[in-house]
């Protein structure tokens, strides 16, 4: 009987509930479809706009979305899609200019959140702020840029900046992976010479998160989470790269945009670079543009060429040609010939799941990365930043009791608890990342990072004040 009642309730809810959150996706390509699928699962209404009728019909059958034939740069189409009640616009078509124009229209027509995919690397060189401030685009994803960043991370597993940000982005959390060569390794926390106004708030060791104290030691393999004010990462970066002096040999297969950017990122003094490209004209272009790099004319799948250039000595092999199959094949060959780390780039989504079949270290798909980046962005708004690091850590705001502040107490005078750490002290408009000697003042507000699920932190910290 009760199951009947609950069933009726469900039906009633189903009839009365009406999702109001609408999203428009311009571009019915793989990324658009995947995004639509994810968004509908999140309970949002989705309208897909694309020029191609056939793509749309498939879309409509696969995903529960409305499909509109038309262009995103056509305002009539946008209106038909109900842009006035739309909160999210995602322009991921294959045309950069149209994506940008669609985003501008969406911004002017009052859409809250706008995401645009832009393929051209030059379009956003250092001018990201123009897009976000003047054109109202909240997130720009550039497949090439994301892939390059990802590869950089893979080659130099150092740190990820800005994995979380707090207080309107003025304070950021960075993730640093500790390797043997890292200057942090085998040091006590207290010994680490961090820049001022930074704080290690937690340490991840063997998948367990804990809050370290001065006497804890850092070991290779640990992941350290460092809190700092905006802009601190440059200092942190300097600190970390001090002892990086042995050069890696990197072989780039294919003269694509990705490899071109990679070649630019890794200067001569950091790595020994060689690039293999099939097309002679492209080779010449590259030679003119890039310096300090060995450009080889030949097929990346030519085993003789690979052997000749000492692939067995290579630390990293990046296969980023135009053809997915060739990338996988040359990656496989390089791995077999003794390259230490092999990264293959595939464009089509189907191949991105090949990593278990093909024996290369990493298969990266720009499409998947773009998708993940956009989804991350969307989730940001969804999950309140009260919990961070996949919900393992909680963020609590606590007011300092007046009586307590008047006494001129310092942070180290607080009841010491091992499962929380004071990350940020908000004093009026000023933000302080505190050390133990900070003296409390009246009307201070504390942002506390805690591992426990306890709610009554106030009492824990300040006792009976």
């Amino acid at each position, binding site marked *: 009987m009760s199951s009947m009642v609950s069933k009726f309730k*469900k*039906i009633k809810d*189903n*009839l009365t509930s*009406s*999702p109001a959150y*609408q999203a428009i996706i311009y571009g019915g390509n793989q990324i658009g479809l995947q995004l639509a699928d994810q968004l*509908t699962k999140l309970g949002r*209404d*989705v*309208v897909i706009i694309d020029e191609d*009728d*056939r793509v749309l019909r498939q879309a*409509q*059958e696969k*995903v*529960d*979305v*409305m*499909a509109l034939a038309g262009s995103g740069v056509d305002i009539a189409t946008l209106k038909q899609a109900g842009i006035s009640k739309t909160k999210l616009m995602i322009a991921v078509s294959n045309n950069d200019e149209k994506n940008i124009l669609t985003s501008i229209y969406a911004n002017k027509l009052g859409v809250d959140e706008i995401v645009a995919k832009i393929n051209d690397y030059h379009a956003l060189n250092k001018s990201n702020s123009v897009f976000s401030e003047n054109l109202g685009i909240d997130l720009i994803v550039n497949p090439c840029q994301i892939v390059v960043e990802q590869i950089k991370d893979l080659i130099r597993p150092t740190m990820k900046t800005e994995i979380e940000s707090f207080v309107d982005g003025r304070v950021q959390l960075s993730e640093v992976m500790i390797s043997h060569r890292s200057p942090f390794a085998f040091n006590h926390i207290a010994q680490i010479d961090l820049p001022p106004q930074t704080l290690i708030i937690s340490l991840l060791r063997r998948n367990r998160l804990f809050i370290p104290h001065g006497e804890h030691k850092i070991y290779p393999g640990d992941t350290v989470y460092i809190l700092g004010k905006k802009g601190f990462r440059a200092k942190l970066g300097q600190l970390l790269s001090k002892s990086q002096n042995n050069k890696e040999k990197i072989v780039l297969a294919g003269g694509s945009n990705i490899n071109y950017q990679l070649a630019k990122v890794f200067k001569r003094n950091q790595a020994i670079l060689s690039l293999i490209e099939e097309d002679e004209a492209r080779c010449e272009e590259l030679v003119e543009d890039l310096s300090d790099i060995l450009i080889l004319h030949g097929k990346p799948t030519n085993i003789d060429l690979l052997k000749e250039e000492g692939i067995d000595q290579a630390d990293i092999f990046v296969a980023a040609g135009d053809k997915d199959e060739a990338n996988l094949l040359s990656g496989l060959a390089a791995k077999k010939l003794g390259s230490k780390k092999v990264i293959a780039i595939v464009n089509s989504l189907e191949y991105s799941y090949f990593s278990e079949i093909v024996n290369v270290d990493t298969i990266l798909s720009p499409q998947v990365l773009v998708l993940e980046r956009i989804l991350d962005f969307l989730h940001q708004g969804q999950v309140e930043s009260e919990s961070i690091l996949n919900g393992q850590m909680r963020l609590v705001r606590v007011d300092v009791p007046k009586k307590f502040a008047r006494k001129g107490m310092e942070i180290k005078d607080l009841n010491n608890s091992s499962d929380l750490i004071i990350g940020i002290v908000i004093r009026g408009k000023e933000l302080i990342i505190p050390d133990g000697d900070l003296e409390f003042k009246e009307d201070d507000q504390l942002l506390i990072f805690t591992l426990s699920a306890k709610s009554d932190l106030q009492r824990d910290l300040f006792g009976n004040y």
Partner: protein
Amino acid sequence: MRLKIVFNMLGKLLIFVGLSMFLPLLVALYYREMDAVSFLVSMGLTVSIGKIMQRFSFSQQEIRHREGFAIVTLGWILISIFGSIPFMLSGVFDNFIDAFFESVSGFTTTGATVIMSLESLSHSILFWRSLSHWLGGMGIIVMSIAILPELAGSMQLFKAEVPGPVHDRLRPRIKETAKTLWVIYLLLTVSQIILLFVNDVPLFEAVIHSFGTVSTGGFSSRTLSVRAYDSLIIDGIMVFFMFLAGTNFTLHYQVLRGNIKALFNNKEFRFYVFLVTTAIILITINLRLQVYKTIVESIRYAAFQTLSIISTAGFATVNYDIWPPFSRGILLVLMFIGGSAGSTAGGIKVIRIYALMKKGFQELYKLIHPRAVTSLKIGNRAVSEEVSTSILGFFFLYIIVFVVAAITLTSFGIDIVSSISAVAATLGNIGPGLGLIGPLKTYVPLPITGKLLLSFCMLLGRLEIYTVLVFMLSGFWRK
């Protein structure tokens, strides 16, 4: 084919139909009729069989194309079978085939009946007949999509049930679209009930006739159908609502949202209006000259009959079987055309006829300009090659089914006009035809096999042929 999903869904549909029998049960209780028992029994039976089917076929898998077709076709057959149980139990019929025929005719909104005298029936049975119209009109599956959360995203099912060559969405989600359609449907029904009630039709009969009109079914509570009232106003109301029921529901939605311009910009609607007015004018002239003495009388009967046939409702205010051949001929043609796509009407649909016409002219044009590059356009929208081929295929299959069924009927010794009109009237979900099955007659004299054949035609017509025929292809069952 994954039968488990299919059976699971069928179970759900049965429970649904079983629960809907609660309404006639209430009617029976209100009028203190014995038939309450038969409804109670059939409700229990339907719901429990549905439950059993669900219990033994739990599946979380997704519905794909094939399952969609299977669910819709089998679902409609099952619903019709279970819908006939109340007829059997209350003793309206003495054989199952008649009960099944009546039930199919109800759910497919055909309105062909095998009951001689409606006045002898109980209120609850009359109500159940009309309720089956109303449920079948917008589609039981569309309704379940709107109501059941599990079905939220099944475009496959939606497509297989909703008539028309292309499927517009009113809202981004299927569920919302289905809900909106039902709300419009409900609005139309309620407003007609009120209008009829205000004009001195008893509430019960107002409900029955509104169900029959808005769903374009045509079951009445009087043997004489709407003629029993013999009132110009009631005729007018019926004509108006039959016209609305034959219009695309997308247009209703747009008009309700204040976009009246959409009405005039819609090519299909314009063509529909054109067809209706031409037919009315031609029949009026013909009637005025040969049958009736006044122009008003001619227009009144012409308009009612024309809309009744083109919207595939199948009510009658006059025995049009005695009209001159020209008028009957026009009515027969209208039987094939039917209402607009996306309406509750049956038939080939106005938009298909329009597209076929354009396609035909295009071919002629190509003979003059062999190198011309053409594209089939309706309004400003180009009809893709795929859709236009599917329209051609549909037309061909419709005619083939029609021919085969009509020839089969003549083999039972039924005269040719009756056979042709019987098949046209069932395939187009209209109801009454000409000759033997004219507006004042019933399908009783047909042989049992004939009734089964026509029941099948009704299903074919309601589900637009493809859905049912693909189910009968051998390749469909292959793994």
